[in-house]
């Protein structure tokens, strides 16, 4: 159920402390008072997960950032400052990979969500049995590993006796080397990712649709709203929190696209690679070229790209989201 309650964080001591000038004594006093009044068992219980987070996330991110300023060579580390960043930002291969990644993300995420939205609307209107059937059918690829999906799609796109060429021949289209043609390779991977990734969005959206009160639709009907108006003016606005989640998580995942590229095209065809993405470049720098410092620097840049994209999305979508 959507809660029409706006979350307004109450003023906290910490907020007021942060608002003023930094004062070490006041901070220490605040920490002491927090320590005295808090339930110490809570700290004990959160300790395992907190340790995991601190060691395997915070420390690892910190270490990766440090590694981006180092040349790591067979267990030895040499501080090289901004050399990796300097190289990356002047490297046409990286910019090509970033362009491919952006194209992939910008098409796969909105495209996938749009199709999932339409499918969800169609599914949601069916009876329970049909809903379960379609949700399961669309979700099935999500439980299959990307590697398996990529192998299957490689055969679908196969230029010599692939299924796709067989079907398009019926409408008079010449057989194409879908993954071997620089003009269609990225599009082919995008199509695979959209089709294979619909399930999660469909499940989320249909669940969110179920939480929209039917009274709102009844009221809209009484006001004379047609099917399209009800969908566009009622359903979509009330799905905004779910859409925001799908967009943010989708973009984060799409910017890290890697497995499909590795299995289907290895970044090719051609040079600079028509499907080479930043995720693939990072993998190659780290595990093929043993250039760990370079891979770390590429990862840091990718992190900032994702961060900027996420912030922009929150700004666009979250301004009047109701929780």
């Amino acid at each position, binding site marked *: 159920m959507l809660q029409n309650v706006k979350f307004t964080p109450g003023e906290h001591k910490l907020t007021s402390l942060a608002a003023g000038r930094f004062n070490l004594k006041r901070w220490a006093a605040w920490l002491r008072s927090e320590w005295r009044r808090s339930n110490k068992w809570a700290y004990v219980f959160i300790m395992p997960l907190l340790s995991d987070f601190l060691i395997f996330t915070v420390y690892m991110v910190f270490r990766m950032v440090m590694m981006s300023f180092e040349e790591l060579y*067979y*267990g030895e580390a040499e501080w090289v400052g901004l050399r990796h960043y300097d190289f990356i930002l002047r490297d046409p291969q990286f910019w090509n990979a970033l362009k491919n990644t952006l194209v992939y993300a910008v098409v796969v995420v909105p495209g996938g969500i749009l199709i999932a939205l339409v499918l969800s609307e169609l599914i949601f209107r069916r009876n329970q049995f049909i809903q379960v059937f379609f949700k399961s059918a669309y979700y099935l690829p999500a439980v299959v590993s990307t590697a398996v999906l990529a192998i299957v799609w*490689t055969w679908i796109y196969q230029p*010599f006796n692939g299924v796709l060429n067989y079907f398009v021949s019926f409408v008079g289209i010449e057989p194409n080397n879908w993954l*071997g043609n*620089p003009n269609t390779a990225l599009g082919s991977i995008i199509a695979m990712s959209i089709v294979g990734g619909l399930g999660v969005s469909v499940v989320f959206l249909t669940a969110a649709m179920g939480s929209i009160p039917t009274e709102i639709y009844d009221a809209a009907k009484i006001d004379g709203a047609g099917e399209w108006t009800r969908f566009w003016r009622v359903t979509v606005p009330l799905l905004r929190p779910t859409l925001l989640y799908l967009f943010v998580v989708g973009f984060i995942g799409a910017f890290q696209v890697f497995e499909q590229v590795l299995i289907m095209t*290895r970044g090719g*065809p051609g040079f600079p690679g028509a499907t080479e993405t930043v995720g693939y470049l990072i993998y190659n720098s780290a595990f093929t070229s*043993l250039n760990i410092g370079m891979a770390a620097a590429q990862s840091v840049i990718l992190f900032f790209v994702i961060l900027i994209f996420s912030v922009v999305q929150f700004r666009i979508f979250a301004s009047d989201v109701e929780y």
Partner: protein
Amino acid sequence: MSSKLSRREVLKLMAAGSVGVAGSSIVSLPGFTRHARADQSVKEITFWQPPIWRYAADNETVVGAGSDDWINDAIARFEAANPDVKVQLELVPWDQWGQKVATGFASGDLPNVIYSQLSVDRVQAGIFEPLDDYVAASGIDSNWLPGLKEAVTVFNRIYAIPAIVNPFGMALSKSALERHGGAGILTAVGEDRSGLTFDMMREYGAAFGDGSSRYFFGVPSDHGSIVYWMFGSWLRGWGVESWSSDEERWIVHDNPKAVEAFQWLVDAQNDKIMIPNLPKWSDVDNFYWNMDTAARWQWQGIQAELEVAQEAGQAPDEFDIVLVGPPHAEDVAPFAAGSGPAASYSVTRTPDPDVREAAFRFAAWLANDDSNAVSLLVNGYFPATISGSQVIENHPAMEDSNRRWIVQEYLPNFAPEKPGGNWQPVINARTARIWNQINPWDYYIQQYQSLMLGQKTPEEMLLEMATRINGALGAAI
């Protein structure tokens, strides 16, 4: 129990937790438990190996790729003969091998004995133990096939024990040629199979193909073999060297023959002699097993691949392959491609001389002991030793004419390629390191694809590659 904890209690709990974590970490340190338990006189060594055996320990039963049956049995045999050594095997699947090795070298967390990782930059980085003293004391090098000692010698010292020889050449499908035309090439190459030329490939290729679904020659365009076949042995056949003698500079583009070599491929594709549309490895397999392609680069292990394809119904039961030497220009002498050790075992640095000695003993035994020779043969390779070659001589698998030709003609009589082949830097550590950093395994493949897609001419491709490689090396373009 009180619902709140005092500061003292929290500190106690945290201290207890820290002790627990520290204790379990220490106990899990490599060697802690085994040192605590094991007899001090027994030396334990660690060993990383990818699965290269399809046959079980009896060398007759097929257990499938990825099996650990043979290597576990081999280790048991070694330990029985060397009770003072315990071998801890980590059999790493091929799809994880690259990452495992990469992270191992980056972090320095490596086993005592490792499969096939010798390179000049790693030697210079001090990763491996020089093995000269052990080799000299044991005298095993006198049993190595000609040229192998040079191939494992870096900066005048021996850093690996050669284990496997696996030369490659052109695999002509006799069945396909006889069915579709062009079978004359089988006799034209000569009795010693040394005479395959580029002109011959065009001539008989035109007789074989039909221009729409049948093509004489197949080159997988998605595979790392592009690096060592098309930028290695293919160029060698045209008389093109890849590196200057000091390996300070990539020199392929300096030689007009290199343009000819790549133009040959473009023309062959346009003239339907080569499979077009950037075929993948699996596509070339399909063409070859269906007899729609008659020539491909391959190792002698193609015979084992044929058996798998036949079992799976992908290849006909009657299918004959004739392995011949790599193609070459009229003015270039025939040569044996990939004649160096295809696999070797190296010992990584260790401060413990006993572990070092134990690691050498195991590596030498696994690589060179005659009891392991037949396993290499049935799994598609050849032993690296003279005595091993004698052991396999009368094995039923040697009735295969391709295997006999390799052992009796190809390896002893054809000129060997230089150690490491004509594609990678092997004597200059700095060049090797920088060259690896440009990731040739993707870069060369993508450039080759650009060429075959018509995005670049051979001149443009070679100049672009020279600019990138020599630019990274700081050498003149």
